[in-house]
């Protein structure tokens, strides 16, 4: 038992007078006045309504303007089906390609030191900086009949421009940064410690990648793939340049919408457009779910 030599004396001071009660309801010091908050929220909502919700509603309204029968017919029409098939094919090739490339590039940049690293980072951003039309023109210049490789390709009877390979190349080029851009900061933030400790525990590079690196960036990777996918489906500019607009053969969904629109078939154009819109909405929902999940994981990790 411990004994202190100083003894506590009963409080001699009278209790402090209560602070004057604030006139209005208490507000956190960091909060704005209610009218400021509500005005800002109203402005934001009005803006969203005019520029996002109304156009979206207009697409569906336009699609069904002449009845559900025409809607279904314009989707079932062979050219439309070909466009849908082509779009899905392009996505099925370019997204996995960019997934592999993005992971490889992000891994190299985040975990290793090498000469020309900053140049590679700049290069990855190039498709974002260049207008899609110019991206398309690059491929025409390379593979077109009058292009650098054109004569050689012609001799060997390989068609790239005005054919499916050109559309895939252009789409892959435009959507190339999404996965890498999403992963690089994530991997850099996580550092090399976990990989190094896996190595000291006897794991080889492959095991380290599959069992440590990849699970750590899983959600970021899925997010990157979703964005990449959305862009690959909707890409117009670059694809328009290399496609040649051959109906039923080289028209993707966005190109098909444009053709229908130019032919004054508004209802059909909107019908196909509504399919694309629907895909976009599904993408957004999946993205929100993933964001919500990562956020929850992060919050749980913080505890």
């Amino acid at each position: 038992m411990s004994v202190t030599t100083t003894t506590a004396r009963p409080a001699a001071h009278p209790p402090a007078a209560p602070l004057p009660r604030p006139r209005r309801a208490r507000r956190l010091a960091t909060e704005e006045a209610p009218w400021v908050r509500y005005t800002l929220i109203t402005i934001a909502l009005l803006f969203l309504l005019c520029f996002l919700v109304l156009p979206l509603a207009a697409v569906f309204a336009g699609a069904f303007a002449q009845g559900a029968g025409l809607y279904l017919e314009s989707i079932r029409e062979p050219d439309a089906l070909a466009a849908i098939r082509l779009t899905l094919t392009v996505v099925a090739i370019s997204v996995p390609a960019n997934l592999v490339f993005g992971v490889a590039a992000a891994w190299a940049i985040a975990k290793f030191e090498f000469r020309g690293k900053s140049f590679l980072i700049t290069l990855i951003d190039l498709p974002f900086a260049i207008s899609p039309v110019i991206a398309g023109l690059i491929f025409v210049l390379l593979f077109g009949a009058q292009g650098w490789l054109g004569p050689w390709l012609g001799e060997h009877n390989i068609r790239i421009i005005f054919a499916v390979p050109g559309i895939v190349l252009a789409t892959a080029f435009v959507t190339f940064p999404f996965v890498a851009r999403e992963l690089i900061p994530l991997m850099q933030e996580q550092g090399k410690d976990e990989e190094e400790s896996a190595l000291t525990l006897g794991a080889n590079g492959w095991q380290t990648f599959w069992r440590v690196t990849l699970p750590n960036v899983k959600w970021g990777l899925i997010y990157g793939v979703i964005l990449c996918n959305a862009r690959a489906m909707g890409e117009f500019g670059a694809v328009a340049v290399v496609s040649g607009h051959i109906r039923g053969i080289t028209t993707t969904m966005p190109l098909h919408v444009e053709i229908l629109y130019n032919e004054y078939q508004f209802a059909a154009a909107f019908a196909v457009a509504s399919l694309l819109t629907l895909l976009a909405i599904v993408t957004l929902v999946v993205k929100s779910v993933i964001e919500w999940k990562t956020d929850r994981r992060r919050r749980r990790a913080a505890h």
Partner: protein
Amino acid sequence: MSIEINGVTKRFGAFLAVDDVSLDIPEGKLTALLGPSGSGKTTLLRIIAGLEQPDSGTIRLGGQDTADVHVSHRGVGFVFQHYALFKHMTVFDNVAFGLTVKPRRERPPKGEIRDRVLELLRLVQLEGMAGRYPSQLSGGQRQRVALARALAVQPKVLLLDEPFGALDAKVRAELRRWLRRLHDELHVTSVFVTHDQEEALEVADQVVVMNKGRIEQAASPQQVWDKPANPFVYNFLGSVNLFRGRVHGGQAMVENVRLCLPEMKSDAESRPVVAFVRPYDLDVSRKPFAPDDIAAQVRFIHSAGALIRIDLQRSDTGDAVEAQLDRDRFRELALSVGDTVYLHPRNMQVFVEDYQI
């Protein structure tokens, strides 16, 4: 397994991180690499582990050159400062990792892995935590998981990079004593990096003091404390007061204190010397003890703690001096700020350039 480091040099660009270091780390001992930040201690540890390639020099583990041995085959356990636990795995999976990545023919059967992991968790006092995720553990618990994970593969050498650096003072002190006991049980050759001299002196069998990529002294804690090799080591091991003087014909004069230095007798030249005095080796009195005592004024009194620390200012040169008194002596003197006192060094360590007394 012993570690022999021979002429190891490592540069990062223009920065010389490790400068021609040679060192023998005896088998079964706990060795501390002690030094300020940027002294190259962590780099040296990473070179031993194989996480960093030396520009020149060799590392031999148990007499075998490791130049061509990949990290994953060196048989070293490495514990990182920030634990580096696998966030997406449970404690159990973290500890089991090293066993499950073994090639199929070396991998123990599932049941055996399970037994080994649970036994290790018992050893680090984390029974019942096997199903938790690292984010659900405290810092000290995470560090113990990291240790269990490193021990799971039965390393021949255990390397720890500032193992207690990210923990608060109380947990740190407990954990380092626990590490010492664990080491006495396992006897695996261990090297740990620290910038905390107290930690190194308390835990290690051998202390290696590093500075600017070089080894200043490698000796037992007792020796490093009593016989520091040079002013840097002396300075780094605790707060000191510095006095200047001259040596001439075997006699040194430091602050009017005459010291006999028979080793210097042959030296006819007068040379400058520096003398270090630990704060607790400084006598403080109200009246001059001898005519050559140093007068000083009390500037500040830190009275919290077992010893009272007093900041003083010399009346002649204005230099700051620190003294430590026990509580009894402090009460006896009844000091307060502004008082004039007299200081008398009881014990000093004199360094003449490269020459130590």
